[in-house]
């Protein structure tokens, strides 16, 4: 009996030597795996259009770029696999998820649910909303010597230089599920002909274009680039980006924002106070050389105030609290209980005052 058990055990071991796929039939041959690195989703006439790009292969082989229309994401995955039978498309390493404008409007919840259920894609995948079609970005930015993933890899740095941050699907999902709005980096394609003269690299560029605003139902709208910087100052960690004030280029070193509520006699929210502090350093002096540091600081404060106000106005106009005003204003349990459930009705009507304290360092040669 013992010998029989040993024989069975050895046979089982031999059977699984090739991995569990040898038994289950779900075998993944590493040689045939094609890692999809960027996935774009569009909503076209009520149908899903999925565009994917593998990264550049070893020895600089061009990326495989494909697109198909389907009834759903899994259906699209199956169809794309049919287009490329020699490869096994593998989605576990998708780095960027691009949602076209319409897809972000119609399909956000479906995408979040799919990623939750899918054993492949991660919640922490970087998410971008494309102004227009995601397909244009995935297909248009790929060419013989470059592909969309390479272009997107540098986007985070580019975005930071503009004062914006790339967000993940998880961050967007967590914010929208909580009933607040979410910010998500918006991108658009830009032709490079006339800027790049190497023909094999003349694919479209994917450039940051401010923030998209999303709520639990999907895309609410886009913030213009300046309001996007204002939103970043209020919600994020604004540092390391450049801005031009009175012709001078300043680098933002640090920023702070304090949001407080004012309350009437009955304890109801009556107004919102916003105080921002921005520390900058002069990077390039191209404007008025006679301008005093105080005047430059005043101009900086005005600029930042305009941008922050634009972000606050957008939040109030859309009724979408993507700036997290609720948590800051309703700062006690009693206030949250009394007004939290009505916040979306209340906050668009609240008057907002904005104060900005702009500081400019490295200004020793100004006004002399």
């Amino acid at each position, binding site marked *: 009996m013992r010998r029989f058990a040993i024989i069975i055990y050895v046979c089982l071991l031999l059977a699984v030597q090739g991995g569990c796929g040898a038994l289950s039939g779900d075998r993944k041959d590493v040689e045939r795996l094609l890692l999809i690195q960027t996935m774009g989703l569009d909503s076209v006439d009520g149908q899903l259009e999925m565009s994917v790009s593998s990264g550049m292969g070893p020895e600089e082989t061009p990326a495989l770029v494909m697109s198909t229309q389907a009834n759903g994401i899994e259906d699209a995955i199956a169809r794309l696999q049919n287009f490329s039978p020699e490869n096994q498309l593998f989605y576990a390493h998708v780095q960027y998820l691009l949602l076209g404008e319409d897809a972000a409007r119609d399909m956000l919840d479906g995408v979040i649910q799919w990623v939750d259920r899918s054993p492949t894609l991660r919640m922490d995948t970087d998410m971008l909303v494309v102004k227009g079609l995601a397909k244009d970005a995935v297909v248009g930015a790929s060419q013989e010597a470059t592909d969309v993933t390479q272009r997107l890899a540098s986007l985070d740095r580019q975005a930071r230089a503009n004062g914006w941050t790339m967000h993940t699907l*998880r961050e967007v999902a967590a914010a929208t599920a909580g009933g607040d709005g979410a910010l998500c980096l918006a991108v658009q394609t830009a032709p490079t002909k006339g800027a790049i003269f190497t023909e094999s690299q003349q694919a479209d560029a994917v450039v940051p274009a401010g923030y998209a605003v999303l709520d639990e139902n999907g895309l609410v709208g886009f913030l213009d680039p300046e309001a996007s910087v204002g939103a970043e100052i209020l919600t994020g960690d604004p540092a390391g980006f450049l801005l031009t004030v009175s012709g001078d280029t300043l680098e933002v070193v640090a920023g702070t924002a304090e949001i407080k509520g004012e309350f009437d006699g009955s304890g109801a929210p009556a107004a919102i106070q916003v105080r921002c502090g921005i520390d900058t350093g002069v990077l390039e002096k191209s404007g008025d050389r006679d301008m005093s540091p105080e005047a430059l600081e005043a101009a900086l404060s005005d600029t930042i105030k305009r941008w922050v106000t634009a972000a606050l106005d957008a939040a109030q106009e859309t009724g979408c609290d993507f700036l997290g005003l609720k948590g800051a204003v309703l700062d006690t349990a009693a206030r949250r209980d009394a007004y939290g459930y009505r916040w979306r009705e209340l906050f668009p009507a609240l008057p907002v005052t904005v104060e900005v304290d702009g500081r400019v360092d490295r200004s020793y040669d100004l006004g002399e």
Partner: protein
Amino acid sequence: MDSELITRKQFSAAMVVSLLSPLLRLMPQTAVCFAGNGAWLSFLPATVPLALLGAILASFRRHMRPGEGMGGLILRWLGPVFGRLALLLFAGWFLFYGGFILRSGAERLVSTIYPSSGQGMFAAVTIVLALAVALGDLRAAARSAVIFRGVLVGALALVIALSVPNMDLARLLPVSAKDAPSIALGGLPLASVGAVAAGFSFLYGYADLPKSGRWTALPLGLLLVLGGLICASVLAVFGPELTATLSYPFFVMIRSISLGDMVPRIEAVVIAAWVGTDFMLCVGLLRCAHEALRPVFGYPKPDGRPMLDLGAGRFLLWMEGAAVFAISFFFDMPPWLLRQWSDQYIPLASDCVLYGGFLLLWLVTLPRRKKETSRGV
């Protein structure tokens, strides 16, 4: 100390490893449904019912004879009729719960890692392995639990540590005194999980355990702290609302973890390690069921015999394994229904059998215990 017995350390390890299975299934979602963003504090109220249950079990333990488990004690105290009925009830519950664990473990593995696979195969492999271990020496299983505990607690700690960059601690707040009732309710799932340890009292006869119940504070404390940490980390990563809507939030969190570019994904290894918790609980439940049935039919302890020996009531273990596997097919149901069983019916039934059963036993045996205590037994 009898070297043939399982040590306290090994018994504690077996408890922790086994209880991690229901813990990871229920937490953090069920606690979040009750307590919202205060769910990470729900391990605190769970200590109250668990301490009470621990005190009840300790009072039973003081009356157990050397080598006797809960099965022998129940039969001795309740007599041949009511004792057998009570033991059959407990055995039935262990087998039913074993069937559920088998299926829910398979469902979790399939839905998170191998979506194109069947659950039956995973259930079959688990029960075959669990039966093989249950037929062997219980000490071997307890020794392996010490290793499993190290691996699993280490894996959990690693997962939580690697998730720190994704955490926003503001999502854990605000929590105020007004949230206390909901946090107390949030402790119910953890209290249910901890109560499963009470079932292990049927195995006390194999272990060298102190008469006082204080030794249980360490394994249960570790379990509660792990429950709190899991809740806190998931809440800090996803927030309460998203946590409540995700299918397996802790697994979704693990999917996002990478160890740099070298190991971009670690979830398969971690989740496969968790199969060990289902396996260990299945072994424990099979032996608990056997320890409940053995006194009913008057069979001796099954240890120390060849694995395939059917004598001394060991055929019962095979039948118990078959019963658990058969019951697992009862849970061959749509995932949403299995979730309903997992989150509502099973914890409720478990609480009724374990809290209710042991409390009832404590009440009806009160005069007997007083008598035995006064006689110095």
